[in-house]
């Protein structure tokens, strides 16, 4: 049983402790995939949106949200998968971007989303190497270790790294 009345603010606090299973330094709030929370008595509704259509982490994230809330005695949880408006890297928080870079993944560069995609053989502008911070990097492949990342390499320190691609 829940000791005190549930508030939306409390749910948001708890959700900030749920981590992205693929990038475990980011909370799902850092990632910007929680689109809304509603509390009605003991019933909690959480709206989440996928980063990519086929993101295999979504089911795990939904389960992790339930488990985190369950640990607080919150059992009546509904999780809605919301596709529209579509997630964009613009929703990733500044704190999230810093954590991402510290973890070794280059954060998305703003304003380079899909409008430029048909610029064939072009690449996103100046992605900074998370290792040596050089802007002298090159795109290896638009597709990387997960659906949300591209593969880059630094021309200065030669470190290969993941780039959380703009979307």
């Amino acid at each position, binding site marked *: 049983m829940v000791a005190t009345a549930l508030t939306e603010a409390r749910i948001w606090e708890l959700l900030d402790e749920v981590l992205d299973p693929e990038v475990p330094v980011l909370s799902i709030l850092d990632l910007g995939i929680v689109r809304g929370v509603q509390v009605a008595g003991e019933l909690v509704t959480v709206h989440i949106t996928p980063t990519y*259509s086929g993101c295999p982490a979504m089911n795990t994230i939904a389960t992790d949200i339930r488990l985190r809330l369950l640990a607080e005695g919150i059992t009546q949880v509904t999780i809605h998968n919301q596709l529209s408006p579509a997630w964009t890297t613009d929703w990733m928080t500044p704190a999230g971007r810093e954590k991402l870079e510290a973890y070794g993944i280059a954060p998305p560069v703003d304003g380079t989303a899909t409008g430029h995609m048909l610029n064939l053989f072009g690449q996103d502008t100046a992605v900074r190497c998370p290792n040596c911070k050089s802007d002298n990097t090159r795109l290896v492949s*638009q597709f990387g270790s997960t659906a949300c990342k591209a593969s880059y390499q630094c021309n200065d320190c030669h470190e290969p790294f993941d780039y959380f691609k703009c979307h």
Partner: protein
Amino acid sequence: MLLTMQAAPSESAALATYSAEVRQLLFQYVLQLADTSLILGHRLSEWCGHGPILEQDLAMANIALDLLGETRSLYQYATELEGKGRTEDDLAYLRSAVEYRNPLLVEQPNGDFAHTIVRQFLFDNFHYPFLKQLKSSPDERLAGIAEKAVKEAAYHLKWSSEWIIRLGDGTPESRQRVEKAIASLWRYAAELTTPTATEKALQEAGIIPDYAALQPTMAAHVARVLEEATLPTPPASSFGLAGGKEGRHSEHLGYILTELQYVQRAYPGLTW
């Protein structure tokens, strides 16, 4: 597949406003879109571990995953449109080849890398401008699925376009292979934009985009890519092969389904 998520109630509200007839048409159509991305995604996944280099192996697996994600959203919507209690797994695993509605192009075998690239390019060149238009559909569910998928489709089209150029303007070997693939696959492209009776009815109802309006964009991109690839434009009069969208498939689909559906057919009702 473990279904722990549901569509938001606001997204289901539109269902109530459709007549039974439109709902049936839309069910058939959503099934067609889902089958298309499922079968192409499956074909691409066959490359996993066999790609020419690691990065391109990953690229094909990534694109397959995007397409499977789109597939799941579409099948989930289809089950709601049908309203008979079938699940997304039932639709994917328990229908026979004649019930599948994908165009013939996407079920064609992978062949060599050039063959896969040409198949992908022909599909992406339709898929991307199509989704861009579908985003404005008055059907909120389709619009939402398109809004999500179009960003991914842009990456796919960029990838396949660049590979057409690399192969065409590459070595004599790569050029010969991409030319052979074009000669073999171009005739399947017209089916993508030739509406079936179902599609015509939904286009007239204003629910899905008019394919004729996509043609100029598609033709311009093909011309641009082939020119950069130094490849000749195939004659427009090449006769087209069609029928998949109405359930008349090539023999290849049966083999795909045999593998795709094996576990569910061998162990009916099995869940993870």
